[in-house]
């Protein structure tokens, strides 16, 4: 029951965004029309360009409008380590944290039999080819610490174990600033199993 058909369809269109419901979409629509038409035009333009222009990097499957993304094209990054991740957001998380200068590979998901996602959907052939081309000393399995993330890590380990000398899994345990008393049992078990020499 809106103001006009065009406004109604804009309100509906905004609801594709995560976390945006009818109310929020209505607020966004009215805001752009009332206060920021220029911004709205720019949004429409960039959105259109991005939706048709952004594809996948041919080497790491990260989002990119070039054939090779900027992480793969950057000659200053090291080929010695390849970090395998579930989503492009994970690359941003690691980049923002800093400290890693190797290469990435993005799966865009994890193995999930019940959702019909098997090895093929995650580009495992491409990962194998990437590892053969790059010949890294180490593959870092940085999939999430969920049951599906762990299943994915195991699958990749079995797939690559004869091709790479060192396959590592990101550490899991007590978070920085964590107090044991408040940590769940599963995490404590992993933290106890994965303890390291103290030096």
């Amino acid at each position: 029951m809106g103001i006009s058909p065009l406004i109604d369809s804009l309100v509906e269109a905004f609801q594709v965004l995560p976390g945006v419901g009818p109310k929020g979409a209505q607020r966004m629509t009215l805001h752009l029309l009332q206060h920021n038409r220029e911004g709205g035009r720019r949004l429409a333009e960039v959105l259109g360009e991005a939706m048709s222009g952004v594809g996948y990097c041919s080497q790491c499957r990260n989002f990119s409008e070039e054939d090779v993304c900027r992480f793969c094209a950057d000659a200053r990054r090291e080929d010695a380590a390849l970090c395998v991740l579930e989503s492009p957001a994970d690359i941003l998380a690691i980049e923002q944290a800093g400290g890693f200068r190797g290469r990435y590979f993005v799966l865009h998901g994890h193995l999930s039999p019940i959702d019909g996602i098997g090895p093929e959907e995650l580009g495992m052939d491409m990962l194998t080819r990437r590892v053969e081309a790059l010949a890294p000393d180490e593959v870092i399995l940085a999939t999430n610490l969920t049951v599906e993330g762990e299943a994915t890590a195991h699958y990749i380990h079995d797939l690559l174990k004869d091709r790479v000398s060192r396959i590592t899994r990101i550490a899991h345990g007590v978070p920085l600033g964590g107090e044991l008393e408040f940590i769940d049992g599963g995490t404590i078990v992993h933290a106890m199993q994965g303890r390291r020499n103290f030096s």
Partner: protein
Amino acid sequence: MSRVTGQPGIVLHTRPYRESSLLLTLLTPDHGVVSLVGRGVRGGSRGRSLQPFTLLRVSWSGRSSLGTLGSFEADTQFWFRGNVLASAFYLTELIIRLLEEREPHPRLFAGLCWALEHLESGPSDVLRRFEKLLLEELGYGLDFARDVSGEPIVSGRSYRLVPDHGFETAADGVDGDVLLKIGREAFAEPGVRRAARGLFAEALAAHLGPRPLVSRSLLVDHGR
């Protein structure tokens, strides 16, 4: 039914829903397969225990097919690795593909608990027992004592499976002795295990339809 409290449940599957919610599928004894929305549980420490193969004590509300998750408490969290994990996924995939939602299955619930507890010690035995139980619970249990014409199955005679009906005598089938052992769940001999695997796969295939089970593809095929 509008409110259920303190029901045991095993998490079969979870999927992100909206910004911070989770859709989860559980197997419970009194309500069978149940789908629930856990509002605001994703990402937080509360939601972290909602992983597949976690045994919970759970409450929910709602009349529709999709209920709302209330309070829950994780009881046991099974954490499998490698091929054992692929086997565990196989069990949950079978349940979700074959069971109707909201039909009570106390035996199957107990069977899944048992299977998850014992999977690590001998996956193939556990899988065969679970498949046998699942077929029984679906109403397609195989009769390993009598053939389709009502005659007792005997050692030394050969049989083949007619899915959903039973065994009939056939020239080049499985020996009656093997069927009797499968009926007693005596899977110690490799020949019996192999035969059981084939028979249960055939019996289940009739209900799974043409779509392949994805969990089978999780066992790395090095031939590729």
